[in-house]
């Protein structure tokens, strides 16, 4: 239901007391409200929906998940090879 895309925080500023940021989405940047991620700092990654940052993104988790999926798929290939033998 909800288009959300990752972006990297470039700069942080305030607008009428609300925390806003300029965020780079990969060659395209936009103003985003970061009021609900008070711990955010420039360089952090966040997931943005409708001009609003929902959460910080975890690089460690992103990499771990990929690593885990690679392991699963390697295991399943090994299984398959065993079956073939």
């Amino acid at each position, binding site marked *: 239901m*909800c288009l959300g895309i990752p972006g990297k925080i470039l700069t942080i500023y305030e607008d009428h007391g609300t925390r806003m940021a300029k965020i780079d989405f990969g060659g395209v940047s936009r103003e985003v*409200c970061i009021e609900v991620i008070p711990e955010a700092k420039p360089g952090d990654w966040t997931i943005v929906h409708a001009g609003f940052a929902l959460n910080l993104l975890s690089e460690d988790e992103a990499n771990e998940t990929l690593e885990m999926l690679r392991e699963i*798929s390697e295991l399943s290939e090994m299984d398959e090879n065993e079956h073939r033998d």
Partner: protein
Amino acid sequence: MENPNFLAGYRNANLVKKVIKEIHQRTTQPWALMEICGGQTHAIMQYGLDQLLPEDIELIHGPGCPVCVTPLELIDQALWIAAQPGVIFTSFGDMLRVPGSQGDLFSARAAGSQVRVVYSPLDAVKIASENPNDQVVFFAIGFETTAPANAMAVLQAEKMGLKNFSILPANVLVPPAMHAILSSPNNRIQGFLAAGHVCAVMGYWEYPPIAEQYQAPIVVTGFEPLDLVRGILQTIKMLEENRIDVENAYTRAVTYEGNQAAQKMIHQVFKPVDRNWRGIGMIPKSGFGLRRAYESFDASKRFDSADIKTQESEICIAGQVLQGLKKPSDCPAFGTMCTPQNPLGAPWCPLKVLVQPITDMEENRKMNENHQAPVNIQGPVCPIPHQHTESVVIGHGSGGQMTQDLIRYNFQSRIGNPYLSEGNDAARLVLENTDGQLAVSTDSHVVSPIFYPGGDIGRLSVCGTVNDVAMLGAVPSFLTAGFILEEGFPIEYLNKIIDSMAEACEEAGVRIVAGDTKVVEKGKADGIFINTAGFGLIPKGRQIGGQFAQPGDAVLISGTLGDHGIAVLQARGDLGFESGIKSDVAPLNHLISDLLDRIPDVHVLRDPTRGGLATSLKEIACQSEVSIRLDEQAIPIKDDVRTACEMLGFDPLYLANEGKVIIILPGEKADEALEIIKKSPYGTNAIRIGEVFEKDPGMVLLETAFGTTRILDMLSGEILPRIC
């Protein structure tokens, strides 16, 4: 920008295929899963992931599209409020074409209402502060994902002391919908993929009791292909192991508790209220209404619209369709009273048929048989555009299906002749007593803004017409230009535009040989409109046109797609994003004549302008009665254009180009043609993207990196930014 595996890593086709293999190995019996979220359905269809799953796994597409489940009565209230004098009604783009009982927000705009598309609820607040004499209303739809942004808009308006801002609260909630689906006596769903972005905000602490109560495993799932197949794998594993639990397969964005600051903000502004869902009915405590402290921001109170109560259709079975209990074709109204153009229930319902046109042939056939005008929408379209027959709406100028229908039913039926019905961008005229033929084309230019990165209305008005003439293989020589100027238009701008036209003419080697100028009163035009017509001779023996594609032909494109569409949209400034993207507007006649000098037997040339590559190829496939298969991975799109499309929910294959040409020619000539085109400054990124086949005439099929196939149809209506 370095990309630490947030997107690219999760689109790795190899890894997706391996996880799919694992799913096949684990599946030993039939399972019915529901992905509740419309965004996930969209991604599954876009990548064709359902085609890769074992037959035993049935994916039931849930009611998780906030646009589609917004009840009729709220849309009717929105239409009523938008029609009040002094109101600027703001909405996410995808809400604009969802029909109420009397038309949609597009028809409201056509009837004089001020309706504006915003990317963010906070943009609506900005509009309110810039227009203190107007009442600005935001249509606050969405699930929990959008709720914090909607709440923030209210808080921001309060902080700024804005008395002219209000929202029409329409937020809906996921857990009550899951209860409603699972508690149905006929429930078939055995496992859930929970919506990743809802959980990014709300966490998943609400789900263990649901999983326990209904004995259905739930997996929090993201939106990329690898996220989706991982979510499915984890659900299947639990089902096969007879294990009931809630697992998180989107750990990079979701924690158990969720974003507590966001939840606090939501609960400060909103309280749970009973809410009707379109086609489903009332679900207790399934929506958000404003708390008493913020009631003054409630547009339904400010405009007394709450009394507008519209009954949903009693015949409609959309609710049961959404729960996977019935098929759309089980409905007595299906294809007769309920059509994609005029859906009775959730617009999602016809979509469910249309996304599976190959597997659900029976339903398609029934729909075609029953409907007076043939339904020829293929592939996922959501929401499906409303049929407008009473007055012109902006979608009639989109260059897609609505434009085609306008031409077919309104123009061709009245002024049609064999020249027009060839259906090309230029006409081919036979001149008596000469060998050659004359190519003639005309094009009006109304682009807004008139100056944008990479071009302006002047350069566009020359290049657009030069290209249309060149697409018949003609050598463009002469243009005419008609100007409609609005009173007050700065002469400085006019001179700049004329200079730009002169420069483009010089580059293309054409001359403007006749012109016309009209001035209209202030408010009767938008600064400047330019019409140009172009003339050129087609050398003897050349037969180039959309009707000449042959099986065995190769499809080439002269460069990257979507640059013009995004550059213009960005320059408008409404959506508030910045990039270095420039329009590709350029005359292509030299590139084409270099090509035709060496390879005269080119079959089709077409510039994919409005409607983009997909619409142009669909037209060609229909004109030539062939099918076209494209390799998605070969299609060139710049990274920043792709990013902009992902932000706005656009498909780059439907965006306008003004300096690109599709070339269809015998397959064995493709390499030589590419070599020639690449020598032109406008063809350096030229590449072969597909092939022409005899089978399935009229179809354009996109082969994805995942080995799946997606049907590309014409652009259905105006391109709109989506949140869903």
